[in-house]
């Protein structure tokens, strides 16, 4: 199995041999920051292109095909256009908060993006309460959304932001409960440890019934958390023009747009990590030859395959179902998902206590 810590320790050794340790660490931090932002942009472009092609396939049409071979340069044209669009200043808007809101959303998105383990040894933020940190970081995005709606000086944006805020804080609970179910199964919150412990079988197999229920609840709640799919009422056209980001144009709107798709990838990546094994290949305990063959495929290929599969699942859900009303969204959460989630957590605790898992 390709271990990325070989590369990182080589780089660290090379740098410390030619300069003092503090400077080496500083240069490494800057390099990691640049790589993180680059990866963020690349993942955003891949996600948006995938959305357009997958959406078209579900609707019996072709997506972008004219710009570049098979439409691959379409996103770059969109990026150029977004960069040169005028940023309209709203007359009575609160200027500081209005300009700050997109950056808060991007900040929370990048913080959450940095937690994902892509390969063995390739994690940026990895400490012993990783799961807890992820939940906290993704909650910062709600502040950005509320600020955007409030400071736009537009009553419909405000309604959109309030609805979005209510929806996001409700579904945070379900996300937390379903992740907690897996944390009970494995008694660690550190992401690299969670992946290491799936070496003899992914948690969705090891934890049979409660883990499958938790996976489904996580998918639904994660979808609602990032305002995607049947839960995108804040962006519903006939209700609120464009909801909390109505008054944004040009690059500010581009930041909201990009953050939405990368948040989708983050939700899928966390689902792939916690339930489907992250970068761990498919191991069937007992079949050593099979496991050897699976090990030849590098970890990041497994990771991206699983994450993109979950992204495809979420896109399938989005392009099948009509939008839910806000009261239906909140009913679904508080009357169905939370009781089922709590009961599921209890079931998992019972399974762990009596040892009824693989």
């Amino acid at each position, binding site marked *: 199995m390709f271990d990325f810590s070989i590369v990182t320790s080589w780089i660290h050794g090379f740098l410390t041999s030619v300069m003092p340790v503090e400077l080496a660490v500083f240069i490494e931090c800057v390099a990691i920051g640049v790589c993180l932002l680059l990866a963020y942009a690349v993942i955003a472009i891949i996600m948006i292109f995938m959305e357009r092609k997958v959406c078209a*396939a579900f609707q019996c049409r072709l997506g972008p095909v004219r710009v570049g071979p098979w439409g691959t340069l379409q996103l770059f044209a969109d990026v150029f256009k977004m960069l040169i669009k005028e940023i309209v200043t709203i007359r009575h808007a609160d200027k500081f908060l209005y300009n700050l809101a997109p950056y808060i959303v991007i900040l929370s998105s990048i913080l959450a993006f940095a937690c994902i383990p892509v390969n063995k040894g390739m994690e940026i933020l990895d400490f012993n309460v990783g799961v807890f940190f992820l939940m906290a970081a993704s909650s910062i995005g709600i502040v950005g959304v509320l600020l955007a709606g409030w400071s736009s000086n537009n009553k419909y944006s405000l309604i959109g932001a309030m609805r979005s805020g209510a929806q996001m804080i409700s579904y945070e609970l379900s996300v937390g409960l379903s992740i907690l179910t897996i944390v009970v199964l494995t008694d660690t919150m550190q992401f690299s440890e969670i992946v290491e412990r799936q070496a003899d079988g992914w948690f969705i197999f090891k934890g049979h019934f409660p883990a499958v229920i938790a996976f489904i609840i996580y998918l639904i709640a994660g979808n609602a958390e990032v305002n995607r799919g049947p839960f995108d009422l804040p962006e519903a056209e006939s209700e609120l023009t464009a909801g909390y980001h109505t008054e944004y144009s040009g690059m500010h709107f581009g930041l909201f747009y990009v953050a939405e798709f990368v948040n989708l990838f983050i939700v899928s990546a966390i689902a792939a990590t916690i339930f489907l094994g992250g970068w761990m290949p498919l191991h069937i305990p007992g079949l050593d030859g099979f496991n050897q063959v699976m090990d030849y495929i590098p970890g990041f290929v497994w990771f991206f395959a699983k994450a993109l599969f979950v992204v495809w699942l979420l896109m399938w859900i989005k392009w*099948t179902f009509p939008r839910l009303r806000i009261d239906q969204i909140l009913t679904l959460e508080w009357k169905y998902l939370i009781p089922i989630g709590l009961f599921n957590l209890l079931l998992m605790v019972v399974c762990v206590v009596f040892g009824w898992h693989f």
Partner: protein
Amino acid sequence: MSETKEYGYFAGLFHGIKTLLTGMRVTFKEFFTKKVTEQYPENRATLEMFDRFRGTLVMPHDEQGNNKCIACGLCQMACPNDTIRIDSEMVEDPETGKKKRRLVRYHYDLGSCMFCQLCVNACPHDAIRFSTEFEHAVFERGKLQKILNITKE
């Protein structure tokens, strides 16, 4: 009128899940069907409209450049919109000395035509008909005012 069934908590939950899965199966099958998109600029060579499609009004001319219009003005009277305007003049036939009406210019405003075909129906000599050409977008509105007859000079 079918009666709506009232579901309890668990029955409603399972019924809801069943309907969701039905919808998902439909779109899943749709994902793998052949796509029906007609790729417009690429298929221009083979693209054919059906015969009755009204694209734009034309006045067909034969090989010598003659048209069948006698400048009677019936199409102009039939048009509900004042899209057609006929400029005609009376010319005297030099041999017989009789006066006849002759068409000078046949103005047609593509921008206000509503393609109702009342003008073609009104023409007694089939001088005008609709052709199936539909690519008319222009940058200046003046380019949509057309003159349909070709003068021989």
